[in-house]
């Protein structure tokens, strides 16, 4: 195993150069997949026989909900790595991932509500999935608020890492308990129609859209962390050389 690769990756300057080369490719690929997946879902798939056209929100809702959960897990693992090995770049990644994840979590909640109105007849049902996404949103807000409360960047990094790790341990417990709570209280057990068997002509655009949104997240994450690297390293010679060329 070649460990020097990891050490190089943890160096902000190396990561900045490397991500700069990656950025245009990720951006183009993300744009392509999102545009194809969403236009396909919006214009070219037949309507669902139960829900009519409102189900087209699925091409937006499912990627957002999936990303909200994935980003939190990724953020917590990154935080743990940064906490244990004291890697500055890992904390920059955590601080960049939290707002992206929170924005997708909010999108999943809002599109879920908009989807619920024509499908279930109400904007909100206390369904197990919507409820756990709502709790995930609170976890994101807590993480963002904790970071902003500290003056020192190092203290904030370590505090946020602890909170993220505790949140990661709790996430499956919350998920199971909410699902259990939902089965206990009958009356709110409305299942999303079409979740078990989905026609191929709907599944392929959905998968394209999910891939597109994941790539898009990688793209905006790279944009964010590059700006954050410049911000935190602005007293180093290489950043001054890079930005000073314009002045």
């Amino acid at each position, binding site marked *: 195993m070649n460990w020097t690769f990891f050490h190089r990756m943890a160096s902000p300057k190396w990561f900045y150069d490397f991500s700069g080369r990656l950025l245009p490719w990720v951006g183009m690929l993300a744009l392509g997949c999102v545009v194809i997946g969403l236009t396909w879902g919006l214009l070219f798939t037949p309507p669902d026989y139960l829900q009519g056209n409102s189900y087209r929100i699925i091409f937006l809702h499912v990627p957002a909900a999936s990303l909200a959960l994935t980003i939190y897990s990724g953020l917590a693992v990154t935080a743990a790595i940064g906490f244990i090995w004291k890697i500055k770049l890992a904390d920059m990644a955590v601080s960049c991932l939290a707002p992206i994840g929170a924005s997708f979590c909010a999108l999943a909640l809002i599109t879920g509500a908009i989807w619920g109105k024509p499908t279930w007849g109400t904007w909100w049902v206390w369904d197990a999935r919507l409820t756990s996404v709502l709790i995930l949103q609170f976890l994101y807000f807590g993480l963002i*608020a904790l970071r902003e409360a500290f003056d020192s960047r190092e203290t904030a990094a370590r505090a946020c890492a602890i909170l993220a790790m505790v949140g990661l341990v709790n996430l499956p417990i*919350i998920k199971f308990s909410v699902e259990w709570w939902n089965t206990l209280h009958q009356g709110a057990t409305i299942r999303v129609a079409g979740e078990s068997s989905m026609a191929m002509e709907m599944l392929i655009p959905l998968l394209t859209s999910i891939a597109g949104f994941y790539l898009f997240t990688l793209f905006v994450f790279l944009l964010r962390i590059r700006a954050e690297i410049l911000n935190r390293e602005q007293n180093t010679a290489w950043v001054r050389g890079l930005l000073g060329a314009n002045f």
Partner: protein
Amino acid sequence: MTLRGLVRGLGCILRRDLRLAFRNRGDLMNPLVFFFLVASLFPLGVGPSPDVLRIIGGGVVWVSALLANMLALDSLFRSDYEDGALEQLMLSPLPLSLVAVTKVLAHWLVTGLPITLVAPVIAIMFGLPAEALPAIVATLLLGTPMLSLVGAIGAGLTVGLRKGGILLSLLTLPLYIPVLILGTGAIDAAANGFPWSAHLMWQGALLALGITFAPLAIGASLRVSVSG
């Protein structure tokens, strides 16, 4: 450090915290009064209909206990942090995670335990059937220590901040949800004459998990707050 020394050191901390709590009667009574106050707001909010109150009773007891516990947490480490006692404790040879768990135990003895003992009174005021009362006491007995353990992580993270109160609630309340669901689930089951031992076992499992891992996180969070 020998086991005897460890037990004696932790016993000292426990006695000190309890003595401090009993010297300040206000701090001892306030969470209890708050618990009663919040619970009595619900009938005023939803109306005095006995049918409605019977349905929401279990949830009200738990939500009130949750809020009372959370508000009391802010003071868990604060005075020790402000007068430097916390730093002294961290310099001592006692493992910080055990010191933290002892302080949590002392805190639970003066807040969580009294709440557990008076909760049946509120349950009776809400018209819950007698079968639900053992479930209320048992779930609170297993649940409130878990709340204190999880909340202590948040209290440790925010102890160095001037306006930690509302932030503390934002951090800890989402993590309280599994305990709340299990507690109210058991009370509901008991009130309707169903067995509720499964809920209790799950709560016990959560508590075992909490006692194992939370002290490490509390210790780490205190280190972050004190050493900056």
